């Protein structure tokens, strides 16, 4: 008798998760990292496996860190917006190439254009875990002290950049 209740039981567990999911907007994850120093890392540069890049390279200026991968469809969608942002010259964009293949990622930048000042190559996703990556793309705004000030989950759009990212960047740049 009890075994006929199994499908219903599984379904109810699923519903519990889905209900919980409704209040957890994946695009608005209040990252516990906001207001904290960015996690330390040292990774090889995407363009050159012989040199490394670390969190200290980013410190000193207000910066944007964008997490992306070639397998991520939304990253392709936001790439145009990133290029536009880079064109304004108002802020340096760093990239964290997440769980990707080096050759594919290099090709991507050649093909689509390269908005990044530099890219860290996180093929294992180890650094991504420290940054609490939920799913690429994600974008962090970091102040000159290396404190994370904002996190955006999901693709950047012209609106997000103009209404959230750039005003925040301007504010951080004027009042360090």
């Amino acid at each position, binding site marked *: 008798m009890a075994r006929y209740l199994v499908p219903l039981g599984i379904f109810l567990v699923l519903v519990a998760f889905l209900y919980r999911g409704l209040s*957890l907007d994946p695009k608005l994850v209040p990252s516990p990292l906001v207001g904290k120093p960015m996690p330390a890392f040292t990774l090889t540069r995407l363009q050159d496996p012989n040199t490394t890049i670390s969190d200290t390279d980013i410190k000193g200026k207000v910066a944007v860190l964008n997490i992306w991968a070639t397998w991520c469809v939304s990253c392709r969608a936001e790439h145009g917006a990133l290029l536009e942002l880079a064109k304004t010259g108002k802020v340096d964009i760093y990239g964290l190439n997440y769980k990707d293949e080096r050759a594919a990622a290099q090709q991507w930048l050649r*093909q689509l254009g390269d908005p990044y000042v530099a890219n860290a190559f996180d093929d294992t996703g180890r650094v991504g875990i420290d940054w609490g990556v939920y*799913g690429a793309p994600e974008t962090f705004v970091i102040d000159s002290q290396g404190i994370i000030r904002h996190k955006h989950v999901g693709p950047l759009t012209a609106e997000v950049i103009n209404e959230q990212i750039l005003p925040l960047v301007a504010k951080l740049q004027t009042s360090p």
Partner: protein
Amino acid sequence: MIPELGNFALILALCLSLVLAIFPMVGSLNNTPGWMAMARPAAWGQFFFTALSFACLVNAFLTNDFSVHYVALHGNTQLPIIYKISAVWGAHEGSLLLWALILSGWTVAVSRLSRKLPIEVVARVLSVMGMVAIGFMSFMLFTSNPFDRRFPVPLEGGDLNPLLQDFGLAIHPPMLYMGYVGLSVAFSFAIAALIGGKLDAAWARWSRPWTTVAWVFLTIGITLGSWWAYYELGWGGWWFWDPVENASFMPWLAATALIHSLAVTEKRGAFKRWTVLLALLAFSLSLLGTFLVRSGVLTSVHSFAADPARGLFILIFLCIVIGGSLALYAWRAPAVSSGGGFDLFSRETLLLGNNLLLIVITAFILLGTLAPLIYDAMGWGKISVGFPWFSAMFVIFTPFLALLMGIGPLARWKRQDPADLARQLRIALLLSLGAGILLALPLLHEGSLSAGLAVALSVWLVSTQFLSLRQRLKYRKGLTGLLRDLGSRGSGSYYGMLVAHFGIAVFIIGITFVTQFDVEKDVRMSPGQSLELAGHTFTFEGVEVVPGPNYSAHQGSIRVYKDGDEVALLQPQKRTYLVQTKPMTEAGIDAGFTRDIYVSLGEALGGGDWSLRLYYKPFVRWIWLGGILIAIGGLLAASDRRYRIKDLATEPAATTAAARKLASARSS
């Protein structure tokens, strides 16, 4: 005025679905023929008013009525007519209306084609479909009304997303919805059978053609979507394991399991409880997909307007429909006799194995899709499950599925002597191993090993299907025997199965070869420059600006030569749509049976130079060719003459016995 008419028609359709949901069901329970007889007229009325409402929305798009909020967001005066129509289902509200229209269409089809069925079965089936319709129509009216007006009225509409301005995508959603919603028929038959307590061969026989047709639509819809992604997104991918793609793939897998399980229930009377559970599962997964796409709990490229209020509505609806049906299952299923027995080794066992594999794959996809949500909800941190995980999972299970697919059709119902089967399969095994090794040997690297495995599996599938055909034609030799057999009763399902399994073989070759042997190159080219890729010479002739109806495009010209002869002139475009100003790529593709040559245009690099992406994609067409063959197989099976022979449906017991005799005669 007309949008109000549409809104009013939608309200009337909801009222009629309430009537449809209540009276025939109650009538069937207390045996009131008058109430049961209301089912058919109510179904027709519901269809009429939903269609009227849909026509009003189409009209609003055609006449550029931007006082309707939905039209103002997604319509535009410059849109070509075909995309004005497809814009109706280009976003959340209108696609729901399409969903409701298709549901009421299926309801009418059931009411029309069920004349031979007992009235209480018809009443219950239509009534359950009416309940589903209530959910969707009230969802629309209460949270997502496509007829809402706005003021002030804008002069121009926001335009349809340029990605969707494509013929493939204009027909992709209707096909997919035909499949999703079609599964509600199997679901309703299952609920009706559970209520009536009669889960028998007759029930399986009634459900089978409906399930198969829905599955065919789903197959076509998924294939179209994959083909569209390939040529429209500009980077030659054809499947991304995106949550929304998974949402369409899971019901497909469950429906595939269901059509196989229904065959066992119809022919052998076995697996009844399992089959009914699969029927509930297949439609539940369709509904779950709706929830995932529209509630915003997961991030996806197919971004529908996400809204937690809508999410909550669908979740409650899911609880009622799925929770209610599973509770009914828990209550009624124990009373169902388990039906025909079978030995440990028999066709039944093999089909059960296939079913379990399909369900395991479905479960893994569901888990992968929901993993980010589950991790988040449990506070275990955040993860993302990407392409590699799904691909690895799929590569592990599919070979076993293909192996069983080869053995199943040869095995006998009820009991199979393993030694005898092994003797029959010997030649197929030798052939496939031989072909696999032959292909894997010359280049022993990773790619050729998986290509070898793929060829072995495909040869295995094809040769075993031929062995099965030979076994079937044991007493009808030669071509005339084959032709006579083609015309006989029950031949549709059999030949449908052969074609669909052959489609799987083609599909396996396609995905493996394109994954392992495709060549791609990112290049910078100046006009007049040539380069070599995969034995072809590509000559870039430059880029010119060409105007389109509602976009302007940079169009490159690349001539492709092989051994000095011109093979193709490819003209990839980079379009800028005038309203949404999104850049879109249109790849230049030379399609071929054994290879595609694919070029997409990158960025202008100055001095007339452009960055280009060149691809050589071997056997990529076979992926969709496989999909088409699978769909054709399904159509053949659904058109089987025995579903249409008049007196069969009314005498279920006799036909079952006849079918059994026929089946055992065939397999011996």
